[in-house]
């Protein structure tokens, strides 16, 4: 498993003797994602769970059979779990029960710790991506982990790579994870809304609405989020056919409001990139009403995006109107990037 081991980041220059140096040394980066590694980790996790389950079943069956063999009727001393068997098997039965319990507790604690870290990683994705990556690298190699936790961990890695604009790797992780069963593919509306008290509600439609929970339900929401990320990665790589497929997948499921807004923005990007100008401007009024629910930069970006198709179709009044609105909504950096 040496190829999966996290590597120490060479990017951080050590400052002699300081806490920064120790922090830099402790920082780890995730190795390039390989689907085979994830498959192996999931297989090992499953093997551990099955082993526990089989041992438990054996324990129960042996207990019942020993009880039946040793009892003449109800109330006989042998008619219970192996722990009380007078033949000496009782001691070993109790030991096995304790071992099974310990293994179960170990697995549960390992999963609980990883779930706890998942929350920290989610919080760090925006403010300290290097630390988030280091935590992902450390947690990935825990064994055993519950399958949803393992998948969510890789989901966070996909989010990280997506934010680092490493679109090829992010797309590969997304595609791989989408190959696994991720709970309900039809999460209830708005499952992606951040689970923090959202006092100014428009903030909820930001791009950082990764599912925050590690519950199985959250893995259902993950599917939609993965598809959204995959679409964006493919648009960034100019893979329009791939983006179309991902958008079709997104249209098959029922999405929450935030996800619907994100899908609409991605679909517009796709339509503009593919030259479907009329489709991009179709029902513009309702599209813009929805865009107004997004944070200002995202709303402004959508206005900027629509200027080109309006111009190509000779609708200069509309193009000017969109431009004036974009000037009020976009940050100076966005406007400068647009030229």
């Amino acid at each position, binding site marked *: 498993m040496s190829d999966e081991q996290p590597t120490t980041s060479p990017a951080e220059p050590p400052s002699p003797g300081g806490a920064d140096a120790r922090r830099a040394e402790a920082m780890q980066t995730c190795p390039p994602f390989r689907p085979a590694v994830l498959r192996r980790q999931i297989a090992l996790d499953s093997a551990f769970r099955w082993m526990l389950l089989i041992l438990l079943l054996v324990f129960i069956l042996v207990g019942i059979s020993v009880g039946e063999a040793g009892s003449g009727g109800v109330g006989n001393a042998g008619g219970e779990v192996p722990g009380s068997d007078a033949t000496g098997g009782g001691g070993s039965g109790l030991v096995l029960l304790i071992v099974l319990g310990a293994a179960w507790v170990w697995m549960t604690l390992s999963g609980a710790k990883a779930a706890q870290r998942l929350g920290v990683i989610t919080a760090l994705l925006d403010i300290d991506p290097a630390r988030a990556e280091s935590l992902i690298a450390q947690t990935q190699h825990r064994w055993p982990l519950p399958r949803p936790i393992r998948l969510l961990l890789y989901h966070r890695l996909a989010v990280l790579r997506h934010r680092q604009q490493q679109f090829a790797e992010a797309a590969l992780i997304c595609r791989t994870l989408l190959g696994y069963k991720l709970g309900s593919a039809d999460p209830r509306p708005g*499952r992606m809304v951040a689970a923090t008290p959202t006092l100014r509600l428009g903030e909820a439609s930001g791009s950082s609405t990764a599912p925050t929970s590690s519950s199985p339900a959250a893995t259902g929401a993950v599917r939609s989020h993965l598809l959204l990320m995959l679409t964006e990665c493919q648009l960034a790589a100019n893979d329009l056919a791939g983006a179309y497929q991902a958008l079709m997948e997104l249209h098959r499921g029922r999405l929450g409001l935030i996800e619907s807004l994100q899908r609409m923005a991605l679909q517009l990007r796709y339509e503009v990139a593919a030259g479907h100008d*009329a489709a991009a401007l179709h029902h513009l009024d309702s599209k813009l009403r929805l865009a107004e*629910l997004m*944070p*200002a930069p995202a709303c402004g970006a959508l206005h900027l995006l629509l200027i080109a198709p309006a111009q190509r179709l000779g609708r200069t009044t*509309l193009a000017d109107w969109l431009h004036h609105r974009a000037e*009020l*909504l976009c940050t100076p950096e966005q406007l400068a990037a647009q030229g």
Partner: protein
Amino acid sequence: MSTSATATAFAPPSPQQVHAHLERYAATGPSKVATWAPLALLVAAVVLAVNVEGGALAILPWLILLAMFIYSGVRTARLRTLEGRAIYVQELAMLRRHVESLRLAWRLLPSVTHLVELHTRTVALIGHNLEQVQAYESALAVLDYLLARMPADSPAAVQLRVQRAIAQLESDHLLDADETLRRLRDLADSQPPTTVSALWHLGRLLQQVRTHHDQDAADSAANLVEQLRPLGVEAGYGHALAALAQHRLAQRPQQAMPAAPPEDDDEPARLDPQQRRQEAALWWSRATLLLSVDALVDRFPELGELKRDAAMVATTSRHTPKDAAPTS
């Protein structure tokens, strides 16, 4: 919340009703019984498994484990249902269906008293919806309730305090609002501007307009577009208030004199009435580009003054695209 016989009639709850509802359904956190019962049952199951003798009783530990498993499943399903309802309420609020959102949040509150985080979210949603339906006194009751239960310096608390200042301005508690805005003055210089700093600027502008400090409002509007930008289309409210300040200044008799140069570099240039009118028209066109005139006047009735002014009507922009119909 009082509603009349018809389904569409709606009256927001009074502050007293809000107080009573929040007190009656205060967050209690998870019950101790619910927390410790699974562990106690597990211990009981182990004790039974080790000690009980006899065929019939031997299955009791397994029955206990099965019951725990079912209970855990039911509990998880219920949590998911409540979470789903809270998200639905939030989505309704985002879609500006505030009355429906308020109704559902009000009804949801009794079910989430044992879930502190969800309870806080639901109360925050009630407050937000009350503000949006212009029940500012009731909204103040909710904001005070929330502020009393969170650390004073947390980002959420700072945002709530700005929201409270705006609600106070809307409900004529001008002195209280002034004190809050003064205390949060540091937000004025936030770089880059944030949603909270933008709300602060909107609150200050509203305060200046409500207290007829129109000159101050006009003077501080130099960077208003940048300062309000994080609010998205709702920045239009601020632009409209800036237009109102300039409009009022243009109407004042003492302004009917030629523009004078500023006495020092920091002082903004004094404009003549014609320039004031042009400035007012510019701000009004920006405001109406982002929001409809009806939405503006509905939120701030004093903006009706601009709506009725013929010169302003001429500069009103369309907040929806002129030729958005499909080309086909």
